[in-house]
């Protein structure tokens, strides 16, 4: 699996999600300790190269790539955000930790905003 996080989430209607638009808010250090979990009202359908995430509350569907799905599957209440970054780093040692941290925090922040994961 190659690392692809530049555009990792798209609406099924091809509305591209620009992760740079969502700023990092709150206490980053505090966020690193939180253990995200998939909202029980969300459903993931895995495909070969991507997955669909359905949020029951909004009835919206997003498409994520393999890297994003890997992160999402680590959102199981057992891994803190910091641990998720560490596991991703082990998988992609050629990607700088600062980039991984920025990408993961931004992605998880977005998942929270969309109601896909909770803490």
């Amino acid at each position, binding site marked *: 699996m190659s690392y692809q996080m530049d555009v990792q989430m798209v609406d099924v209607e091809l509305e591209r999600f620009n992760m740079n638009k969502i700023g990092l808010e709150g206490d980053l250090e505090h966020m690193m300790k939180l253990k995200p979990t998939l909202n029980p009202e969300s459903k993931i*359908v895995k495909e070969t190269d*991507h997955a*669909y995430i359905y949020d029951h509350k909004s*009835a919206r*569907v997003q498409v994520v790539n393999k890297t994003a799905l890997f992160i999402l599957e680590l959102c199981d209440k057992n891994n803190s955000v910091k641990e998720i970054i560490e596991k991703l780093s082990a998988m992609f040692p050629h990607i700088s930790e600062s980039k991984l941290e920025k990408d993961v925090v931004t992605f998880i922040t977005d998942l929270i905003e969309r109601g896909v994961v909770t803490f």
Partner: protein
Amino acid sequence: MSPLKYLFLYLTFDCNMNCRHCWVYGGSAKTKPLDTKVWTNAVDQAADLGLQLVKFTGGEPVLEKSLLFDLIETGVEYTIETNGTLFTEHDIMRISKTNIVEIDVSMDFPDAKRFEAFRGLSHSFEKVTHTIRLLHEYGIPVVCVMSVFKDNLKEVPAVADLVFDLGACKFKAHPVLSMGKAKQFSRYLPLNAYREFVQVLERMDKKYPGKIGTFLPWALIAGFMSNPLTITRSVCEYKSLLTLLPNGDISLCGIGIINPSTVIGNIKYTTLSEIWENESSLLADLHSMNPLQLEGICKRCIFKNYCANMCPAFVYDVYGKFAASYPICEELKASGLFPEEYLV
């Protein structure tokens, strides 16, 4: 009040072809069109309500050529759905000087013999292919639309190759639906062929990226394609459109001819503003239709917000109401052929 973005004008139900799958009873029964002034007034009224695009259709709208040109030369942005047999080069030259957005031309087979047998008009294949080429040469975006059924499923790649070779900018392949006159048609795409149909479209999408479109539910595209994110899906803009039928009746679309109970007024006796702003109960039902409150399989599908129920007119024709589920998905589900991983 939301804008009335789209106005469909069925200039006539007359048609020089005789297609068994035609859902609006297009044919040779001559109907007297409304005066040009009635049509132009309707377009003016729609402009005040937010009109963005007019679609001319029928029947064969080019049979009312004089009326058609009176309307398109008013400066309106428009599309035409046509069988492509009646345009002269002079017509196409005139069209190229107007605000044409695209012309949709029907093409269902890659050869004259089967095309003309299906469309019921001799020597039409050569005329249609000539028209497509001319439209392209005059810089008019031409979209070729294939009605897919049992006997031409295997021909989808050949038809796509043909129309792109002629200069089409897009190719759309839609399954024939069992509604209106087409209920008598017996050669529908079998339920167990939908997977093959979607997979053929995927191969065409790889060959012609961004140029393939279809009118299929998201669950079938997601379920039967390995990478469904590039294909174009047509959707019904039912909350933003009204239709005028040849006799002035106002409806959602051609459903007004096959189900007269869906006619909500007549342009000879009312205005589009009155219709749009004082919603009848039928129009109010349509405008308030919430995909989350659909019934049946649509209610359970994760893509309900994106399909709604695909085609409220087809749904109405089958179930007698707009807010029901899409019949094809229901039939696929009943046959064990629906990709159930998308149901919650």
